[in-house]
C-alpha cells in the first residue's frame, strides 16, 4: 500500500516512539531506582536521574546480601533460575521432538489416540493439576531439588504440536531416500530430521527458556530452602518484609538482574529465532 503522506513517516514513527516509551519507561525506572539509596526511594520522591550507589547495591544484591533480612544473595537465585530454565527448555524440546517423531513417522496402533491425549494436556497446565503434581513430587521426595523444579514441567503439548506440524512438511520422499540409503529410524532422526529442525529448535528454545525462567507458582510451592529459591520468587520475598523498610533499591536491582538472561537469550538467538519462525526452505 503506497500512500502520499504530508508528514512522510513522521506519524508512524511518533506512534512507535510512544510505544517504546511506554514499554521502556518502567525498565528505566527500575534501573534508576537500583542506583539510589534506600531512603531516597522510601521518602516517595523517585528521581529520574541515576544515583551514586549503583556498585554498592549490585555488589550487595549479587554476592553478599544485606543482612537486614534473611534473604540469600541473588547470585545463587540466578543460578537456580538458570538451571531450572535450561532444564525445562532442553527437557521440553527433547521429549516433544521424540514424541512428534513417533506420531508423524511411525504407524502403530492408537497413534491418533496418543496424539490426542498429548493434545488434551494443553488444557492441563501446572496450575490446574497443581495438587496431584505436588503430591507426586513430594512422594518421590523431590521437594527442594532441581529435578522437582524441572521434571513436572517438561512435558509440552505445544512443542509436540509444533514439531508435528514441521515434520509433516518434510517430504515423504526424503524418508524413502533415507531408507534406500540404508538409514534406519534412528539414523534418519539424527542425520536428517534433527539438522533440518535446528532453526525450529532454536525458536522453541527461546520461548521455552523464557517460560521456564518466569515460572512462579510451582517454584514457590515446592522450594522452602533459601538456597533453592529462584530469582522470581526472590523478588517477591524482598518486597514482602515485615517490621522493616522494603529495600527497594535491592528489589529493583534484582528485577534488573532477572531481566538480563532472557534478554541475552533473545538477543543471541534472534537470527535463528526469526529464521525458525519464517523459514520454509526444504
Amino acid at each position, binding site marked *: 500500500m503506497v500512500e502520499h503522506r504530508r508528514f512522510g513517516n513522521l506519524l508512524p514513527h511518533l506512534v512507535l516512539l510512544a510505544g517504546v516509551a511506554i514499554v521502556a519507561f518502567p525498565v528505566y525506572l527500575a534501573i534508576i531506582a537500583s542506583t539510589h539509596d534506600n531512603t531516597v526511594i522510601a521518602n516517595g520522591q523517585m528521581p529520574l536521574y541515576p544515583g551514586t550507589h549503583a556498585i554498592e547495591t549490585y555488589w550487595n544484591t549479587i554476592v553478599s546480601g544485606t543482612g537486614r533480612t534473611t534473604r540469600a544473595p541473588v547470585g545463587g537465585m540466578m543460578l537456580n533460575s538458570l538451571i531450572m530454565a535450561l532444564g525445562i527448555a532442553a527437557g521440553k524440546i527433547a521429549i516433544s521432538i521424540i514424541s512428534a517423531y513417533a506420531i508423524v513417522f511411525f504407524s502403530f496402533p492408537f497413534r491418533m489416540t496418543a496424539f490426542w491425549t498429548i493434545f488434551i494436556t494443553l488444557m492441563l497446565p501446572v496450575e490446574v493439576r497443581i495438587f496431584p503434581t505436588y503430591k507426586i513430587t513430594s512422594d518421590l521426595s523431590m521437594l527442594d531439588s532441581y529435578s522437582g523444579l524441572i521434571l513436572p514441567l517438561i512435558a509440552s503439548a505445544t512443542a509436540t504440536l509444533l514439531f508435528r506440524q514441521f515434520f509433516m512438511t518434510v517430504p515423504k520422499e526424503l524418508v*524413502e531416500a533415507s531408507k534406500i540409503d540404508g538409514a534406519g529410524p534412528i539414523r534418519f532422526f539424527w542425520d536428517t530430521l534433527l539438522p533440518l529442525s535446528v532453526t525450529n529448535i532454536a525458536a522453541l528454545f527461546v520461548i521455552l527458556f523464557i517460560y521456564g525462567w518466569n515460572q512462579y507458582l510451582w517454584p514457590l510451592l515446592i522450594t522452602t530452602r533459601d538456597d533453592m529459591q529462584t530469582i522470581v520468587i526472590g523478588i517477591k520475598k524482598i518486597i514482602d518484609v515485615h517490621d522493616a523498610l522494603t529495600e527497594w533499591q535491592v528489589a529493583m536491582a534484582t528485577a534488573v538482574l532477572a531481566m538480563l538472561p532472557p534478554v541475552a537469550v533473545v538477543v543471541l538467538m534472534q537470527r535463528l529465532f526469526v529464521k525458525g519462525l519464517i523459514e520454509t526452505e526444504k
Partner: protein
Amino acid sequence: MASVTLRDVSKTYPGGFEAIKGISLEVGDGQFCVLVGPSGCGKSTLLRMVAGLETITGGDIDIGGRIVNQIEPAERDIAMVFQNYALYPHMSVYNNMAYGLRNRGMGEPEIDTRVQEAARILELGAMLERKPGQLSGGQRQRVAMGRAIVRQPKVFLFDEPLSNLDAKLRIAMRVEIRKLQRRLKTTSIYVTHDQLEAMTLGDILVVMNGGRVEQIGNPLEIYQKPATTFVASFIGAPPMNLLPLRSDEIKSQFAGVSRVTGDAGLLGIRPEDFVISSDGVAGGIALGLTVEAIERVGAETFIYGSRQHEGQGIAANPGELPPGEVIVRIPGAIAPAIGERIRAIAPREKLHLFSADGRKRIDL
C-alpha cells in the same frame, strides 16, 4: 548387473482397492524398461514395490535371481531417483552422494573415488561443496542421479525424474539419462506419463492402464502394432484416429480391402498415415472431410476434419477424439482453408483393425 523379473505381482490396499492386478514382466540385464500410462494406472506403485517402499500382496519380485519380497529397500541393491529429487537439504552435494555409502560402512578413500567419478560423469565437480538449495533444477536432478550412480546398484529406478523440469531441460536430461544408462549398462526401470519420453528412452515399453499391462514390447513395435485401442490412442501424439466400422461409408469401402470378421468393430489410422489426394486408393481407404480447424506447428500441420453423415460430439475420454472427428497430419505449412472439403486417403498396410470393445487387435 542383474535382471528383474516380476511374476504375477499384485497389490491390494487394506481398504480393498486393487492398485496392481497381477503383472508379469521381465527386464533383462542392462535393459532400460519404461513403465508408461495415465495417472493412477499403478505405474509408480509398481516401481515402489520393486524398490521395497510398498509391500507386495501377491506374486514375486526377483532381482538378480533373488526373491526380494520381504527384503528391506536398502538391502535390495537398488537406487532410486525421485520426482522431487529428495536430496538432503542440509548436506552438501558431496555428502548427499556419500551418505548412502557411509551408512554401508564403506571407507572414506573408496567413497571419495566413487563420488569424484560420479561428479566427473555428471559434470558436478565445481558444485560438490554447495547445498541443494543453491542449485538449479537440472543440477539437483544430476545430484539425484549421482547419488544413484555412486552406489553402483544392480538396478536404477526412476520415478518421473524429469517432470519437475522445464521443457528444454527435460529433453536435454532425457538424452543424458539415456547416454548414461548405455554407458553404465545398469538395468533400469523408469516411470513416466509422457509417451514421448517413453518412446525415446526405452528398450522395453510397458503400457499400463488401470493396474494392468496393456502391452509390452519395444517402442517401435508398440507404435506400429498397438495391441489395444488404449495403447493406440495413448502412444503417439496426436492420437490414432479410431473409426467405427459400422459406418456405411467405411463399410462399403472396407469390403474391398479385407474380409471383415465378425468381431472387428474399430478401424484405426494414425494422423501421419493420411495423404490428402484426389487419387484413387487401391486397397486403401478414402475419407471425405470438412476442415474444421488447423494447427500449424512449423514443420507439420494438423488438420481437424469432420466426416459427413456423422454427428459432432464430445470425446468420452481425455485424449480421445470426439466421434466423427479425424486428425490428419501433413508435412509443411501449406494447408487447406477452414470449411474446405478434402479427401484423405490411407493405404491398406497402414490400417489397424480392432475388436469392437477395443481390447483386441485383428491383423489384416
